[in-house]
């Protein structure tokens, strides 16, 4: 048994790693920086950069030495675009455009319009894709001092040149062309990070290890605090739903098993499919409108006393009962046709004795695994019930966060939920092994 648990614990490591990876890819790689959401559309590049610096968004994604900086927006020409949408190279009139490419004339000097001062003592690199018909040299100058130089050989093909330099002063960056004219296709300014693993992924991992889930963009509260505060009301709502629905659907499933293929069973099956087909949303709206508003049996909104919980719990039980009743019935029926049940009936045990003494314990195995796995979902609360009935739990909080694109909160809830689920599946497997000794052999 101990060996089984240890092996199962080891399985947990790749799963948790996978969860981290998915969360990371979803919220960092695809989602990108929430800076513009947090600071608004008109925020200055400097403010955005500072926000990213604080949250660790201005690092390479997985690993690498160079990262983009907002000081000079990356620019790439689209072939055939004649009017320059962005004019990154110089305000100098000599910078002419030919076919959408910036042209650096021999002897011309073009100021790089950086949005804010670069960090002193930090290495940067200017990556350009260029070509030159007659060959030329690109020289980068800080003020009047030349800091980097790259030769462009003559030819028709595009080549990439990196101009690496270290920023020493506040002087503006100037790009100078020497010898022949050079055409530029793209320009990108990148900053060197501390080391190759100074990346967003490692930053994210470090934050997770310190149990720092960041701060809400909307309310600038700590996400961990918000989670801790929301979990109570959520559980107050979900635990009664969970228990009530488990008891109710198990007993109805037993009734089904007892009356199998006779009319009470058929009626219950149809009833469960019908329950299943009615959208959760509709249950809530109808329930709130008729039971709370029209009949005023229940309070409509808020979280003042326990009576506020009655209606949401009732709706929660009704709306999730269909699926579970069906599932438990299948399990019970699977058992009902087994030999030991026939033997029990043959030796003259009462139907109730067979049902409760033989069928139920055996059917409990899949029920337990199914139940344990469902427990972590209690933590996220019920997304809709909470926002409809004004219960200040995690579900309502997540909905608000999604509506206001509050990435940090959503990420926190998703991540903790996934972690709990991974843990619960471990517990569920152990339970399974405890109640069913055959499992360990596999």
């Amino acid at each position: 048994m101990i060996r089984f648990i240890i092996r199962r614990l080891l399985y947990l490591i790749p799963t948790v790693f996978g969860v981290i990876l998915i969360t990371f890819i979803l919220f960092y790689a695809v989602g990108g920086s929430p800076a513009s959401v947090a600071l608004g559309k008109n925020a200055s590049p400097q403010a955005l950069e500072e926000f990213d610096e604080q949250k660790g968004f201005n690092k390479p994604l997985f690993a690498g030495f160079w990262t983009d900086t907002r000081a000079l927006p990356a620019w790439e020409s689209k072939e055939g675009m004649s009017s320059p949408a962005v004019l990154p190279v110089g305000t100098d009139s000599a910078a002419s455009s030919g076919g959408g490419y910036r042209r650096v004339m021999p002897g011309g000097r073009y100021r790089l319009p950086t949005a804010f001062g670069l960090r002193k003592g930090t290495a940067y690199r200017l990556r350009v894709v260029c070509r030159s018909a007659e060959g030329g040299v690109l020289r980068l100058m800080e003020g009047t001092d030349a800091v980097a130089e790259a030769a462009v050989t003559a030819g028709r093909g595009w080549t990439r040149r990196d101009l690496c330099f270290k920023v020493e002063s506040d002087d503006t960056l100037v790009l100078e062309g020497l010898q022949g004219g050079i055409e530029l296709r793209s320009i990108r300014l990148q900053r060197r990070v501390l080391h190759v693993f100074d990346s967003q992924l490692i930053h994210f991992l470090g934050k997770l290890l310190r149990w720092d889930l960041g701060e809400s963009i909307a309310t600038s509260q700590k996400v961990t605090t918000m989670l801790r505060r929301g979990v109570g009301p959520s559980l107050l709502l979900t635990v009664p739903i969970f228990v009530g629905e488990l008891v109710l659907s198990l007993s109805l499933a037993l009734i089904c098993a007892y009356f199998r293929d006779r009319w009470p069973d058929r009626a219950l099956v149809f009833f469960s499919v019908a329950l299943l087909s009615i959208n959760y949303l509709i249950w809530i709206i109808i329930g709130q409108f008729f039971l709370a508003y029209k009949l005023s049996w229940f309070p409509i909104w808020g979280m003042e006393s326990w009576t506020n919980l009655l209606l949401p719990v009732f709706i929660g039980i009704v709306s999730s009962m269909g699926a579970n009743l069906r599932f438990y019935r299948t399990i019970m029926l699977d058992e009902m046709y087994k030999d030991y049940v026939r033997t029990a009936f043959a030796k003259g045990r009462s139907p109730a004795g067979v049902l409760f003494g033989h069928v139920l314990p055996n059917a409990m195995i899949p029920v337990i695994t199914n139940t344990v796995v469902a427990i972590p979902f209690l933590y996220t609360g019920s997304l809709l019930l909470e926002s409809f009935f004004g219960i200040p739990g995690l579900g309502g909080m997540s909905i608000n966060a999604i509506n206001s694109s509050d990435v940090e909160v959503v990420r926190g809830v998703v991540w903790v939920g996934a972690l709990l689920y991974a843990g619960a599946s471990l517990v569920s497997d152990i339970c399974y092994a405890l109640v069913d000794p055959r499992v360990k052999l596999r």
Partner: protein
Amino acid sequence: MNEKGTSLWATAWQQLRRRRMICSCLWVLGAFLVLALYGEILHQWYRFKDQTPPYQRVDLQKRYIPPSVFRHPLAPSPDGALPGLATVACRLANHPLGTDNLGRDVLQRTIQGARIAFLVGVVTSLIAIPIGVVLGCVAGYFGRWVDDLVVWLYTTVACMPGLLFVLAIAMVVGKGLMGIYLGIGLTTWVGLCRLVRAEVMKHRERAYVMAARSLGFSSGRIVFRHILPNVFHIIIITFSLRFPAAIGTEVFMSFLGIGVQGEPSWGVMVSNARLRLWQGVWWEMTAVTVVIVVVVLAFNLVGDALRDALDPRLKSQE
């Protein structure tokens, strides 16, 4: 060759046809398909002509018209005479399900909603089913590290908290249909993948696969030409059962405002009608509710029947 054999599919079809309930469900689904196609044609037509379609046209003069049955279609004409049959029919056909708070026809919007629901069901299936099938087949057939990798992948995805994960994907991708497609499509392949993997594992050891292997067929050919047809019924069953679930999720997401934008989907209609419900405007809510419930119920019943007919063993593996 006079011996009459019936295929799995023919037997299943006969079983379905014998049940009257399932037949009526199939009719409902047929009507749903036709309405969705009609909605799509209408939508494309107005897009092609670059006009505001009638189901989007705001007409404040015609706000809150109740369904035609409730507008006294038999009331006498202004001159006191009883209305003729044509007049009554005309009255009944004018906004048969009433109008909403902006004077838009509820029936037309419901049909557009059917179009969106259909699109969501099909597109999310087109995303989820290939992922599940390919990963499941590959894992089941090749076993070893491929299997480990796939199992790792689906355990990980299964760990993500259901609906919240869907919503998070939609949030990151951006509001609109694409968010719904990706959110639902990328999260709902796990169950199918599990089933296909287990089934392919069983088939791997069968004699026909051995025979194909000894004939020197490539692995790809064995998996997709020989094994896949034998597990295809799982795909059909999964499709029919995930379709209503996708519709439900779309309603949910559009209701929350991160789903369909600027088009009348059922979720948008529910969210719109909910606010009017308190003012006593019940018809929009009723229309949408009834349509959603009927379509989803029909899908669930047909899916269950299909499962019973094609593979009863799947029942306990949900």
